[in-house]
């Protein structure tokens, strides 16, 4: 009864084209934002803010970036982590080499660098599709990381390979506690999610989806193939780059190539598949799932040990985690290709009808 759109008439196209056309959705999102911005930093402890919520937001942003490329524009990438690495290293360099630069400006510049790298490795997409493209993006994964490791300039000739990220400051104001770092991350991610949502519901988003669904037809209605695909790579890599910068600065506190391995690229792809291909919300749901599930699995193994008195080793749990992720990928591709986001949508449909089933 609560979630009902009956009676909410739309008399203009502007009303019909709002992000959240249903009143209850608007209320819910307002409450969610209020909680995230006000209550969480006030009451969240260090562990939740620093080890769960901040990385959750960062991976959501990375997944969102990959989702723009793979989910909306239909171009598969296995190199997301490399674009994140570009963002992280370039932020370090911009802060290092331009004294007093506001961190947000460094993020944007680093994101632009990642976008440029993305365009270069996206060039083959003009001629190829599918798993061919997967191989091309693998080249990004391995080559970019090698460059960042071998070319001393990027790490300011650090010998250890691990550099400490500089402190985060905007015009002298320091973000030095987990709560402040969380708030900065939240603000960046929320703003970028809004921009992505707007972009995907306007001409650019439609061009992406058209290229994804049928490229010949897209070209026949006048959508420029090369520009559209490269734009998708650029925007996606920009998002990944900013996510990488946040990952290094507000989460890890270090800039190191090892953090951006092929494994991370796969993890982000899993977030997209499980969360929902071609859905902004799905990127968040997928990231939440992939981050929370191992924690849950650890807890569960603890309970099982307690109940049955058998010791479950860490190795078993971590292997089990890998198996379950892999299995879930197959399961979602077979049973619900649009992932958790689609399940959420179905739940909302049910709620609209509740308590009358028809």
């Amino acid at each position, binding site marked *: 009864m609560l979630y009902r759109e009956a009676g909410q008439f739309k008399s203009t196209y502007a009303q019909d084209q709002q992000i959240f056309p249903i009143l209850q959705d608007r209320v819910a999102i307002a409450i969610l934002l209020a909680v995230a911005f006000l209550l969480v930093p006030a009451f969240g402890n260090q562990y939740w803010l620093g080890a769960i919520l901040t990385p959750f937001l960062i991976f959501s942003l990375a997944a969102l970036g990959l989702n723009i490329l793979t989910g909306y524009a239909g171009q598969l990438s296995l190199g997301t982590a490399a674009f994140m690495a570009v963002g992280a290293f370039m932020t370090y360099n911009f802060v290092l080499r331009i004294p007093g630069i506001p961190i947000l400006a460094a993020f944007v510049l680093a994101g632009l660098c990642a976008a440029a790298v993305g365009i270069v490795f996206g060039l083959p997409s003009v001629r190829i599709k599918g798993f061919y493209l997967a191989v091309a993006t693998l080249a990004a994964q391995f080559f970019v990381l090698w460059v960042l490791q071998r070319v001393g300039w990027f790490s300011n000739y650090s010998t250890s390979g691990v550099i400490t990220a500089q402190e985060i400051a905007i015009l002298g104001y320091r973000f030095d506690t987990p709560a402040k770092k969380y708030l900065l991350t939240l603000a960046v991610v929320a703003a970028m999610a809004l921009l992505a949502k707007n972009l995907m519901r306007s001409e*650019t988003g439609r061009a992406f989806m058209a290229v994804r669904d049928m490229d010949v037809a897209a070209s026949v209605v006048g959508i420029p193939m090369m520009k559209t695909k490269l734009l998708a790579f650029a925007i996606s890599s920009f998002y990944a780059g900013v996510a990488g910068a946040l990952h290094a600065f507000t989460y890890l506190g270090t800039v190191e190539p090892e953090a951006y391995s092929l494994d991370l690229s796969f993890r982000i792809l899993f977030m997209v598949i499980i969360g929902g291909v071609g859905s902004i919300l799905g990127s968040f749901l997928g990231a939440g799932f992939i981050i929370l599930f191992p924690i849950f699995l650890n807890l569960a193994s603890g309970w099982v040990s307690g109940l049955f008195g058998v010791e479950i080793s860490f190795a078993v749990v971590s292997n089990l985690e890998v198996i379950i992720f892999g299995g879930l990928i197959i399961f979602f591709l077979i049973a619900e290709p649009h992932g958790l986001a689609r399940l959420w949508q179905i739940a909302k449909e049910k709620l609209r009808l509740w308590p009358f089933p028809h």
Partner: protein
Amino acid sequence: MTVPQPIAGAQRVGEVVLAVENVSLSFGGVKALVEVSFDVREHEVRAIIGPNGAGKSSMLNVLNGVYHAQKGTIRLRQGAAWREFHDMDSHEAAALGIARTFQNIALFKGMTVLDNIMTGRNLKMRCNFLQQALWAGPAKKEELAHRRAAEEIIDFLEIQHIRKTPVGRLPYGLQKRVELGRALAAEPTLLLLDEPMAGMNLEEKQDMCRFVLDVNDHYGTTIVLIEHDMGVVMDISDRVVVLDYGRRIADGTPDEVRSNQAVIDAYLGVAH
């Protein structure tokens, strides 16, 4: 932003706007088109017919740059000026005002009917992606203006009830209609229809005939169509060109073509 305005009264067939001259196309050793020439006049409904494998779809594909002819020229009139092509790509063709539907429906299956029709207007949208991401001022205004234009096409094709449905879920006949809608959204000067009535039942065919004639009448759009249903072809087209084995074997009014011996032979399968 201009919404296509109906032009009062039925359109009179005008001067030649498109001339195909000696176009040849082959795939490996297979000759799909051999030295084909014909022209299309402004505001006319021009049919291309022929037995299976005659090269009809290939001809349309050459006209809007999906395939590239090895030989020949295509001349297209824009206002008073002629533009000559040996080779164009389909994106260019769209920019020149050529729109197209496909025999096997080439809609964007994951998108809604409304979004599919909106893609037809992409060439008319001017805002860049940064403005769109901000959804402010000009981008929002533009989006709403084009939404209005898309809604007019939705009204015209009587598909209001399915505007938010993903096209993948629609029955075949409706998908064909949506595809016509996407082509119309571009406000084309030349509309290429590849078997718009194939696989339809009688009622759907009648609806589609009506839409095609209405488009021709109200908007003055020049139409080139491929169709197998001879009754439809004879009823709605002004002139007919007949292809067989990639060659033009006849060209003329429906009556002339109907009585042409080469055409009768081609359809009845007389040995060559």
